[in-house]
């Protein structure tokens, strides 16, 4: 129950396009949208595994599908969003985590460097696995 005084308060509503009003809001919405593309990549990976399980012909057919210009375009857009997602997530780490070594607080920059170093190590390992092994 609101009082007669409160009933006269002016309550503003956020416009539907509130996220176009500030660059940081738009960037935030793009980042939220990026999760759709992360999901898309997961689906693609699952389909790839299914194709591999389906034998050489199914695999070749799937590769042909991926080579289609439309699929390449979709994948490039998805990759861009995926990188945006990953970079913004990584950059968040030093603010979300307070890391201590021997009782001392590790500077945020060092934490961030650690995250990127870890990312690099995993990427190099995966590249080695795919290309060499």
């Amino acid at each position, binding site marked *: 129950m609101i009082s007669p005084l409160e009933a006269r*308060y002016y309550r*503003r509503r956020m416009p539907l396009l509130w996220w176009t009003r*500030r660059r940081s809001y738009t960037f*935030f919405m793009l980042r*939220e949208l990026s999760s759709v593309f992360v999901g898309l990549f997961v689906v693609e990976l699952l389909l790839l595994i299914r194709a591999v399980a389906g034998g050489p012909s199914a695999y070749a057919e799937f590769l042909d599908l991926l080579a289609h210009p439309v699929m390449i375009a979709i994948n490039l857009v998805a990759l861009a969003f995926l990188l945006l997602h990953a970079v913004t997530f990584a950059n*968040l780490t030093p*603010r*979300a985590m307070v890391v201590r070594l021997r009782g001392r607080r590790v500077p945020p920059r060092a934490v961030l460097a650690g995250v990127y170093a870890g990312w690099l190590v995993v990427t190099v390992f995966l590249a080695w696995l795919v290309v060499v092994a």
Partner: protein
Amino acid sequence: MTDNITLRVARYRPDDGETEPTTADYDVPLRADWAVLDGLNYIKDELDGTLSYRWSCRMGICGSCGMMIDGEPRLTCATFLTDLRPGPVRIEPLANFPVIRDLIVDLTDFMHKLGKVKPWLIRDEERSVDDGEYLQTPAQLDEFKQFSMCINCMLCYAACPVYGLENSFVGPAAIALAHRYDLDSRDEGDRQRLTILAQPDGVWDCTFVGECSAACPKGVDPAGAIQQAKLDAVKSILMPWRSR
């Protein structure tokens, strides 16, 4: 002869039968040492005594003069007119809060939330005064000092689209202050606060827009505090025995 600058001020006078805000233009002197608040005081003293707004300390401590200046949440005492040339400068009440009159918003919701997160020292067993104070090292103070700089000006709420869209969200400043006490070595109330923060409308509503930290005039990082509180909430589920 000093230059003038136009302040385009939002007016809302329900007493006069107005049902929605209007704007009024006022020309005020553009002086090098004048903040927006000085301009508003000039209007109140010299041009239109009916203008209503909150202010107190004029030095960024009391947190009562927050308004939207050209669409950005700012302290009017810390925003200088010369930086807003050539004008007109849009001055509106703090976004995301109901407007009572002119530039004054209703604080009730924030005050309620602030109390809900118990921003004070909680002890399992209070020590008696005779036992002396709770001691703390400089390193322990550094753990939370940044978050204790909050002046409750609510600029972070005006910057937060999550709060703007759904005002049941506890919000940046209240969570930052809860986190400040959770990090305090003298406090033992983290479990009590977690039951509030881990609920719906608590930390998980935050989608990390990050604008609260950008808007904070005191260099507090509420967005960081909320993410840290999220990690604490997860840890308390995974390792329930590890409570301070």
